[in-house]
């Protein structure tokens, strides 16, 4: 009895002390000591973008030693593997990367995150970050992470050369019959209508997700995710049928290519469109030296004003030693100047609506506008939804099976079972 009481009062005291420390720290007091930043961004544009945050945080906190401990691979799974063992061993880093939604919730359940609600309030972030995004990072009225930027997963990149050759023009909101007509025209000219590199199944899963969102709309998609709508609904079934048809329009070697191979094919013009997150933008611009508008354009399956979000967020470890350092880093991430610098390199949209996007690429300006004003839905493929991580895995596995057995029935049944079980 006595022990329990002490436990509670110690916890309460710590919570109050922390809130006091975090909430009342003078806005420009620089943090000292060391912090470790743990992410899965290790090379190319992602590393450059991360360095933009690190150098800004370093400049604002000259006496703070920032160690960049990143581990690449498995679309973040390698990093999660390392993180799991570190958490099990009680050796949490100060800052680590995660996805808002179910993944974040898993960490909250394990009680390893520092509550950032007070910082959100003192810095006024609630006013400038879209409310669905804040909601995806808030559990039991406490907000636990900050976003660096938001990618869009349902962009359809179109090869200008390919569509010119086929005599089609795809832009804005594209419905299935329009796309089908264009695809057949492209096929007639010897162009693969769809570029796909699905050695890693997420790229195909992403295409299906875009098709489902197109058929079900934003509210339908949210209903599918929270279990209030069955995956056996007409919209989903239509989308799956369309997906099966789309699989006959892809490049023959799609299983042997990863996503960069598909983007390369699009850049060459051997295929027509590629549904890919807008990290492809940087790939097209920098690696393939393509010009926005001249060599490629973009459209969207379904409503062009629906933005499927892929946010990257960072959290502060509760048991990490340097809490003040962690908070300082979080503040650097949300700094408008840093938001601009980061997203310029990363290709995503700044999460703050008060960041001027004038200096960003043409595509990014458009994306930021849709993010601010359009309908935002979380991507299941990229672990953004407020569902258990196992549901995302079940979705990916179901798409793998779907490609082999083409059964709409089995797919919808499996998804309903996964949502129900989790």
């Amino acid at each position, binding site marked *: 009895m006595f022990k329990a009481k002490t436990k509670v009062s110690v916890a309460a005291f710590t919570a109050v002390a922390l809130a006091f420390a975090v909430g009342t720290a003078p806005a420009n007091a620089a943090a000292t000591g060391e912090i470790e930043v743990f992410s899965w961004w290790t090379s190319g544009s992602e590393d450059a973008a991360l360095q933009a945050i690190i150098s800004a945080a370093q400049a604002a906190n000259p006496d703070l030693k920032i160690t960049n401990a990143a581990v690449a691979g*498995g679309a973040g*799974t390698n990093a*999660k*593997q390392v993180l*799991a*063992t570190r*958490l*099990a061993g009680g050796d949490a880093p100060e800052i680590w990367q995660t996805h808002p939604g179910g*993944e974040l919730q*898993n960490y909250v*359940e*394990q*009680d*390893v995150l520092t509550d950032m609600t007070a910082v959100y309030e003192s810095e006024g972030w609630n006013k400038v970050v879209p409310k669905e995004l804040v909601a995806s990072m808030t559990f039991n009225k406490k907000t636990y992470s900050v976003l660096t930027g938001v990618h869009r997963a349902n962009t359809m990149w179109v090869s200008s050369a390919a569509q010119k050759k086929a005599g089609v023009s795809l832009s804005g909101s594209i419905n299935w019959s329009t796309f089908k007509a264009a695809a057949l025209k492209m096929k007639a000219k010897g162009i693969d209508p769809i570029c796909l590199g699905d*050695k*890693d*199944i997420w790229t195909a899963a992403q295409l299906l997700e875009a098709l489902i969102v197109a058929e079900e709309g934003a509210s339908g998609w949210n209903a599918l995710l929270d279990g209030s709508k069955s995956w056996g609904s007409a919209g989903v079934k239509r989308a799956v049928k369309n997906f099966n048809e789309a699989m006959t329009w892809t490049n*023959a*070697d*799609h*299983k*042997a*290519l990863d996503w960069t191979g598909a983007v390369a094919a699009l850049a060459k013009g051997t295929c027509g469109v590629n549904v890919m997150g807008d990290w492809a933008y940087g790939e097209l611009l920098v690696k393939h030296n393509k010009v926005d508008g001249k060599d490629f354009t973009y459209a969207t399956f379904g409503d062009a004003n629906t933005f499927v979000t892929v946010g990257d967020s960072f959290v502060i470890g509760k048991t990490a030693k340097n809490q003040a350092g962690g908070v300082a880093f979080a503040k650097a991430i949300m700094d408008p100047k840093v938001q601009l610098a980061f997203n310029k390199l990363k290709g995503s949209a700044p999460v703050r609506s008060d960041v001027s996007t004038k200096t960003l690429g043409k595509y990014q300006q458009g994306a930021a506008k849709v993010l601010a004003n359009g309908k935002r839905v979380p991507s299941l493929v990229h672990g953004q939804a407020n569902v*258990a*991580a*196992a549901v*995302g*895995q*079940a979705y990916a*596995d179901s798409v*793998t*099976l779907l*490609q*082999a*057995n083409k059964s709409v029935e089995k797919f919808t049944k499996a998804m309903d079972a996964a949502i129900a079980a989790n």
Partner: protein
Amino acid sequence: MSQVRGKSYPPVKRKKRGGDTKAALLLLPSFLIVSVFVYVFITYTIGVSLAENWMPAKPSMAQGPDPFATYKNLFENPRFQSDLRNSFIFTVLFLLLTVIAGFFIALAVHNMGRTKGFFRGVFLLPYALSFIVTGVVWRWLFNPDSGVNLFLKYSGVASAYKSITGEELRPEWLTSATTVGDISALLEKIIPGGQYIQVEMGIPLALIPVVIATSWQLLGFAMAMFLAGLVSIPEELREASMMDGATGSRYYRSIAVPMLAPIAITTLVILTHVALKIFDLIYAMSGSGIGFATDMPGIFVYESMYKALKYNTGAAASIVMLIIVCIVVVPYLIHSNRETNGR
């Protein structure tokens, strides 16, 4: 009577009991520390597999109402069924190719003169590469449009094939969704609970390029093992057998092969170990493949634990793999230990 370096010794019949116990004691430290790293950790893993909601920072071993539900769901999971099938087929094909080819290449290299070092180096070099990179390079090489199929095209083999059969010769390699020889019906009758089989139990053709890539990497090691054995065959034995009239293949069959048997066993065990745990190479080369054609238990454990955050499922899959290995490998090991003992 045996002679060692010119001295002759009568065979010793009496066993020194004291020496043997001492040997056991000297082996004990290794045995104990390996046991901790293996069996204590496995016991922990079994606990995780039976727990309801184990999490790294909240390692609760508390079990739900049906702790074995995790195992039941595992066997009914089409992905895990594919993994078991793939693991078995991959291991068998890989062992056959690597050990047999490794053996014959070792024999050939052993016979070479000045070029011995060159060949040894060339065949062993792939083993030096990291598995991840091997996977990527062979994925490129097996691309049906830009990889090794080009050799078929430009060497005239493809056109010859077309003129004979009237069909295009364009192997699909990793992009193939075909499974050859489905024995699900047979298995359903034999295995208890076989009615839950949901995948085609045959040979997924997409596994063949994976076998080739892994063999390419490990053949050099198998060759090195057999070379070590060949090099250790005392020269006198070879000369003595020559005197007895055994030349060429007769020598190999009656002298060399039996002497290489223990090395072959070692090679088989090590390569089985590699095959059952294969992960990096396949993950980089083909991922899980169409309809899980190339998925492996290692990948499943990795994704279950660290992507789906279902630690109990991943742990259960590991334990199942271990049990299967025990059932298959242990009798073989005991048998081979007895065979090679007391020489």
